[in-house]
């Protein structure tokens, strides 16, 4: 009888509790572009999450790179705070760079 390693605790948790954590998936569609959030999926660990993401979200040549992060590690702002968080920016149009006059010599801005 071979000694069982059981090295990956995640496997055990998956089989015992029959529930897998949720992961958020980010795909980069082309070299040089940003990774963009495309959705979420269930998987027992990070490796499986990437493989699942490959199968679920890149079947139609959508991507060249995949990031996954367990959903519980995403911290979000509270929608109820929206008024105090974002409204104050509404009347601060001077924060836009259009108020600065650039010399003609400066290019590519």
């Amino acid at each position: 009888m071979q000694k069982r390693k059981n090295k990956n605790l995640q496997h055990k948790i998956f089989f015992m509790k029959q529930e897998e954590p949720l992961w958020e998936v980010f795909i980069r569609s082309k070299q040089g572009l940003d990774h963009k959030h495309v959705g979420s999926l269930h998987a027992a660990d990070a490796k499986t999450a990437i493989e699942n993401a490959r199968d679920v979200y890149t079947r139609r040549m959508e991507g060249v790179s995949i990031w996954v992060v367990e959903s519980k590690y995403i911290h979000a702002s509270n929608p109820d705070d929206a008024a105090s968080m974002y409204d104050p920016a509404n009347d601060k149009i001077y924060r836009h760079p259009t108020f600065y006059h650039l010399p003609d010599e400066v290019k590519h801005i």
Partner: protein
Amino acid sequence: MNPLFDYTLHLADSSLIMGHRLSEWTGHGPTIELDIALSNIALDLIGQSRNFYQYAAALKQNETEDTLAYLRDAREFKNLLIAETSNGDWAKTITKLFLFSTYQYYLYQQLIVSEDKQLSAISEKSLKEVTYHIRWSSDWVIRLGDGTEESNLRMKKAIENTWPLTGEMFEPAAYENLLLGNRIGVDVSNLKNDWLKKIQSVFDEATLPVPGNNIWMQRGGKEGIHSEGLGYLLAEMQFLQRAYPGCEW
């Protein structure tokens, strides 16, 4: 007898029948992610078979990829037995896919240097797909083998059931031997060492035993001698073309 035609059919049949069997999981996978993953793999395999059937049809008059896939009877199919075996539980599906994909990997790797440009091109395209099939299935072999008592036990049973179907992979059929001289085919008996080494390394990590050399091996698939299951598979797969000949949709 045209050995190149037979050989191309053999390659096509193994991919098609394996792909069709795996497609039976579609809509029944344990989770939506795994359902899609297996369906993707099934589609890869059916895509490979189409390439081979199209080439085979070009080698013979009055045949098309559809007549070859849909209008031949079980006795004319030359697929490996491991392709037609039932899916069983998740452990058996994973095991047979891993054993088969690893075989396909080393086969296509050799077939890329074939003197036959078509076979070489199809193999090159298919090898990338198969590389992923191995990666996906071997992860599951390790997960299940090194998982719980139950999953470990099911994997051992799956290996016991599928291992006797691996022998014929490495025993050349008559048409394979005929293609060795002109460097078109692959000497499959040479693939066994690499295949076994890969299986061994994954099974080791999965804490699963590799069966010994004295296991009795089933054979005949390549020559058209099949299990009962293939008849039922063909009955379902070929129904539409048999009932409505030439039907398109």
